[in-house]
């Protein structure tokens, strides 16, 4: 179950790619926790956290272009912050701290998404007792998000080819009609999906299949990363 279209998992042969997803998620969340709970992200600490992230990214062979694309989601907030700092008394240092934390957090999530395949993440969530219903919905979204996404783009392309140069309101109404067609198709597809699932013996309360293996390497990853992050957090620099 992989979708190159909306999955940012970056396949590579590195030791990190063979580790248990739970340990990778733990280290990723620990990193974000330390960064976000640091009261004063000084230049030295920010550089140390960035260095940690860059080393991990290089070891996992995560392409830098992926990170640059992801940072794009910060643009509206950067503009808002810039305008706010310009018009009010918010200091430049405060703005830099916020942006620094945002960049580090996005960087950590990008590395995580690149080294943990989404189905493995679902298995890890299942292992930590996240409700099965929620995991099922996530799996459905992952499976059908790409299918419906492609269908949406086809509908949008057809619409753009036929209805150009119209007034905004009409644009929006036409898009409303396109989306209602997509919604009806989604419903009908869901009925077929359910029939197929029943044919394969699906039961909501049936056993779930998961293969996860926690090795010494995972323990080493957690131990080393925790020691480095604790050192940065409590280090006097």
């Amino acid at each position: 179950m992989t979708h190159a279209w909306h999955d940012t998992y970056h396949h590579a042969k590195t030791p990190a790619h063979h580790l248990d997803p739970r340990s990778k998620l733990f280290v990723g969340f620990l990193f974000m926790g330390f960064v976000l709970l640091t009261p004063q992200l000084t230049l030295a600490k920010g550089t140390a956290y960035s260095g940690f992230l860059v080393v991990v990214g290089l070891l996992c062979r995560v392409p830098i272009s992926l990170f640059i694309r992801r940072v794009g989601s910060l643009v509206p907030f950067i503009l808002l912050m810039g305008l706010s700092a310009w018009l009010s008394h918010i200091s430049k240092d405060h703005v830099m701290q916020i942006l620094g934390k945002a960049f580090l957090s996005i960087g950590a999530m990008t590395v995580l998404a690149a080294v943990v395949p989404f189905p493995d993440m679902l298995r890890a969530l299942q292992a930590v007792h996240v409700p099965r219903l929620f995991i099922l919905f996530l799996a459905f979204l992952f499976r059908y998000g790409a299918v419906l996404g492609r269908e949406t783009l086809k509908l949008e392309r057809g619409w753009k080819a036929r209805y150009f140069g119209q007034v905004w309101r009409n644009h929006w109404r036409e898009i409303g009609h396109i989306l209602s067609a997509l919604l009806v198709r989604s419903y009908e597809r869901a009925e077929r999906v359910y029939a197929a699932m029943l044919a394969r013996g699906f039961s909501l309360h049936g056993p779930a299949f998961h293969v996860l293996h926690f090795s010494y390497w995972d323990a080493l990853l957690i131990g080393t990363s925790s020691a480095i992050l604790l050192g940065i957090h409590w280090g006097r620099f």
Partner: protein
Amino acid sequence: MHIPDGFLSPPVWGALDVVSGSFLVFGLRQVGRHVEEKTIPLMGVLSAFVFAAQMVNLPIGGGVSGHFLGGALVGILLGPWSGLVIMSVVLVVQCFLFQDGGLAALGANIFNMGILGSFAAYWLARGLRGVMRRPRGQFWSGFLAAWITIVLSVLSCASFMSESQVVPWSFSFLVLGGAHVLLGLLEGVVTGTILMSLTKVRPDLLNRPKV
């Protein structure tokens, strides 16, 4: 409206993670208890629909475009708890796969777009349908519910950011609120049109039991 990490202070994101997490756990319990097994894939595919619908860019003018959010629509169609669960699933996937919205700020994003988005829209549409006549009533109730919901959600987003001392309240109220009063119209027209189309094509979908 997807708040990234770093833009909220730890007490704000911590409190919202607890509140939204509790709502989500209760919502999952409600859905599991009241929804038939047959509806589970339906809800899963609907979350994929919201995810896909958010990719369509809606022209605003001057080269600027926005996109449909869908929280109000799923709230009106399936009920507030189902809407909350669907929007949470979409937000979790967007956070993990696209880094759209932060992990620590996930509680705030679920609160704004899932809890406020679904509950306010569901109750507003329900109230408005009672005083408006069909079939136009379906459009106007959806339009107003989606519009008001977007404005409420963005004001909530602005209040969290000003509480975290990221932007002053008056500034965020004017800039974010002002922009979304206009962007909300777009969400309203699309939501209303979808509901009116469904009245003609598949009215059974509007009469499903709401959870």
